[in-house]
C-alpha cells in the first residue's frame, strides 16, 4: 500500500448520540481514523462497541432521530460529509462509497429482480440507459463469480443462496466503481466455507479494482487474513490502532490483548478453557469521563477512573488509548494480576 498518501477518508472526532426513552446513549465517542487509498482497514470490537454505528454515521445512513451526529468531521475528497446537504450525500452513496451489509438474506428487496437492483445505482449515478446498465450488471455478476450471469439477472433474490446473495450485494456495492467500500460484517451470516469464498473474492477484487475497504467484523481470524491495518473499538471509541502484524504481535491495550486471548488456537498446547472477557460492554449514558474498559480491565488503576485515556503512539504507526504500559513482545497469555 502506498504509504504517506493523502487519506481518501479522514474522520475526526466523530460523535454520535442516540436519543432513547431512557435518555441519551453515546454510541460513538470522538472516533478518529484515516483511510488511505487502496488500504483495507479492519475494524474489530464486540457487539455494541460502535463499529457499525460509526460507519453508518459517516454517510448519513442512521435515521435521525433517534440518532444525532453531535460533532466531528468526515473529510472525503475535500468535503465534510457531515455538513453537505442530503442530496449531495445521496449522490456519493452507492457511487463513490459502496456498502455491503451483514445479512444477505434480508438486504436485497424480495420483490425486484437482482438485475433491477444492480441496475438501479448504475442508472441513477452513471446515467446509463437500460441496455448499458444491463450489460454492466452482467459484467458485475461475472466479476463476483456468479455463473450464467445473463440469465440470473432476471432471477429474484429468493432464488439465490446466502453466499450468492452476498456476491450480489458486493456487485451492487461495486457497481459504480467506488473509492471506498464499507463492508459491515459481510461474512458473519454465512457458513465457514462460503465465508472463505467471499474473503477470497474480496481479496481478489481489491487487488483488481484498487479501492479502499473498511471491513467491520468481530472475527479476528478474518482480520488477520485480509486487513492491512486494524482499528480496535470499545465503548464507542477507538482504543487501539496498528498495522495488522504489529497488532497481533504486540498488542498494547488490555482489551486487545484480552480479545486476542479469546481466539482459540489450533497450534500449541490445548488450554483448559477458552478465555472470556468477564462482564458486559458499557452502555454510555454520557460522554465517558473515565476509561470505558476500566471495569473489565485486569490492569486498571486509580487514574483510569479519573480520566479517559487519549490515544498515544506506542510504536511505528501504532497507537493505543491506555495509561498502562504493556511490556513489549510478551506472550499473549499472561497471568491475570492487577497492577497496583
Amino acid at each position, binding site marked *: 500500500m502506498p504509504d504517506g498518501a493523502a487519506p481518501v477518508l479522514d474522520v475526526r472526532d466523530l460523535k454520535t448520540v442516540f436519543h432513547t426513552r431512557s435518555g441519551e446513549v453515546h454510541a460513538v465517542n470522538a472516533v478518529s481514523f484515516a483511510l488511505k487509498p487502496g488500504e483495507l482497514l479492519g475494524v474489530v470490537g464486540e457487539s455494541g462497541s460502535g463499529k457499525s454505528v460509526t460507519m453508518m454515521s459517516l*454517510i448519513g445512513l442512521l435515521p435521525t432521530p433517534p440518532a444525532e451526529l453531535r460533532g466531528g468531521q468526515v473529510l472525503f475528497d475535500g468535503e465534510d460529509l457531515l455538513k453537505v446537504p442530503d442530496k449531495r450525500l445521496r449522490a456519493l452513496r452507492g457511487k463513490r462509497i459502496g456498502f455491503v451489509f451483514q445479512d444477505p438474506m434480508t438486504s436485497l428487496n424480495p420483490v*425486484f429482480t437482482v438485475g433491477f437492483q444492480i441496475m438501479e445505482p448504475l442508472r441513477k449515478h452513471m446515467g446509463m440507459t437500460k441496455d448499458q446498465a444491463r450489460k454492466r450488471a452482467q459484467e458485475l455478476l461475472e466479476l463476483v463469480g456468479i455463473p450464467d450471469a445473463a440469465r440470473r439477472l432476471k432471477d429474484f433474490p429468493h432464488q439465490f443462496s446466502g453466499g450468492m446473495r452476498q456476491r450480489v450485494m458486493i456487485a451492487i456495492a461495486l457497481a459504480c466503481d467506488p473509492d471506498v467500500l464499507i463492508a459491515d460484517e459481510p461474512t458473519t451470516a454465512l457458513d465457514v466455507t462460503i465465508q472463505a469464498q467471499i474473503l477470497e473474492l474480496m481479496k481478489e477484487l481489491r487487488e483488481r479494482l484498487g479501492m479502499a475497504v473498511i471491513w467491520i467484523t468481530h472475527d479476528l481470524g478474518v482480520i488477520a487474513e485480509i486487513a492491512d491495518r486494524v482499528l480496535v473499538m470499545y465503548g464507542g471509541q477507538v482504543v487501539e490502532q496498528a498495522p495488522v502484524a504489529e497488532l497481533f504481535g504486540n498488542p498494547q491495550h488490555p482489551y486487545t490483548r484480552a480479545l486476542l486471548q479469546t481466539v482459540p488456537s489450533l497450534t500449541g498446547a490445548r488450554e483448559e478453557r477458552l478465555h472470556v472477557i468477564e462482564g458486559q460492554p458499557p452502555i454510555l449514558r454520557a460522554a465517558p469521563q473515565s476509561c470505558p474498559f476500566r471495569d473489565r480491565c485486569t490492569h486498571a488503576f486509580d487514574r483510569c477512573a479519573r480520566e479517559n485515556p487519549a490515544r498515544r503512539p506506542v510504536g511505528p504507526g501504532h497507537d493505543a488509548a491506555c495509561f498502562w504500559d504493556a511490556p513489549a513482545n510478551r506472550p499473549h497469555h499472561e497471568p491475570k494480576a492487577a497492577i497496583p
Partner: protein
Amino acid sequence: MFTYTVRRLLLAIPTLLFISLIIFLLLDLAPGDPTAQLPLTIPPEVREKIRESLGLGQPVYVRYLLWLKQFLVAEPLHVFDTMFGTGFADGMQRVISWQTRSPVADIIAQRMPQTLWVVGLSYVIGTLIALPIGIISAYRQYSWFDQIGALVSMIGYSVPTFFTGVLLIVVFAVNLGWFPSIYDTTHVVDSWDAFVFQVRQMAMPVFVLALYNAAQISRFMRASMLDNLAQDYVRTARAKGMSEKVVVLLHVLRNSMIPVVTVIALGVPTIFGGAIITEQVFKVNGLGQLLITAIYANDIPMVQTLTFIFAVLIVLFNLIADVLYGMLDPRIRYD
C-alpha cells in the same frame, strides 16, 4: 399460474354447490310462511293452494333441484336470449320472487346500479384516501399527522355507520339543509343541475361508508409500511443513493402493497352485498335493502338467490386475491 387458476375455478364448483345447498336447507328450516302477509280474510284452503302454486308442496330435494335448474340454466339462457334475440329460454321457469311475482334477476338488475354507485364509489374513495394516509402515517410515525390519522381511524372504525349516518342526517340535512336526507332513486341525471343534485344526495352515504373503509384500510397500509420500513433492504436502497421518494414509493410500497391488496380484494364482495344498514338509513334502495325486505316478507327465492350471488362473489374474490398475491410477490409461485 394459469393452471392454478383453472384448478381453483374447478374446485370452486363443488364448493359453491355445497354452499347453495346449505343456504337452501337453512332457509327451508327457518320459520315463516310466504302467505303470512296476505290479508287474514283469505280462507285456509285458498292459502294452501297459494302455497302449492309456489311449489311448497313438493319435497325439499325436488325444490332444491328445481331452483338449481332455474338459476343455473334458465337464467343464463334468458340473459343470452335478451342479448342476442334468440329463444332458448322460451317456456322455461325463471326464479320468481314470491313478493312481486316478477323474476328475481330482473329486480336485482334494477337495484344493482344504486348499490354500485353509492357503495362502490365509497369503497373506491375510501381506498384512494386510505393508501396515502397509511403511507404518510408510517413514514412519519408518531408525528401529528400520524396521531390525528390514528384518532380519525379509530373513530371511523369503531363508531357504527348507523350512528354516523343518522348524525350526518341530523346535522347536514335537518339543521343545515345542505343535503337531502333521503336518496331519490328515480332521479335522472340529464343536466348539470341534476348532476349536482345527484352528487349532493350521494355525498352523505358515500362519506359514511368511505370513512369506515378508509379507517380500516389505512390502518392496514400503515402497519404494512411500518413492517417494511424497518427491513434491511430499505437500508440497502438508501446505501445505493436512491432518493427517499424511490426508497419509500418504490421499494417499500411495492412490498407493503402485497397484504393490503389482498385485504382490498377481499372487501370487494361486500360492495355487492350492499351496506345493508347504511342503505336503510339513507333509503338507498340497493341490494342490501332488497335483501332486508325479502327476509321480512319470507321471499325465499329472492333471499336464496341474493345470498348465493354473494357467496359466488366471495369465492371469486378470494381467488382473485390469491392470484394477485402471486403476481405481486415473486416468492409465491402456484405451479
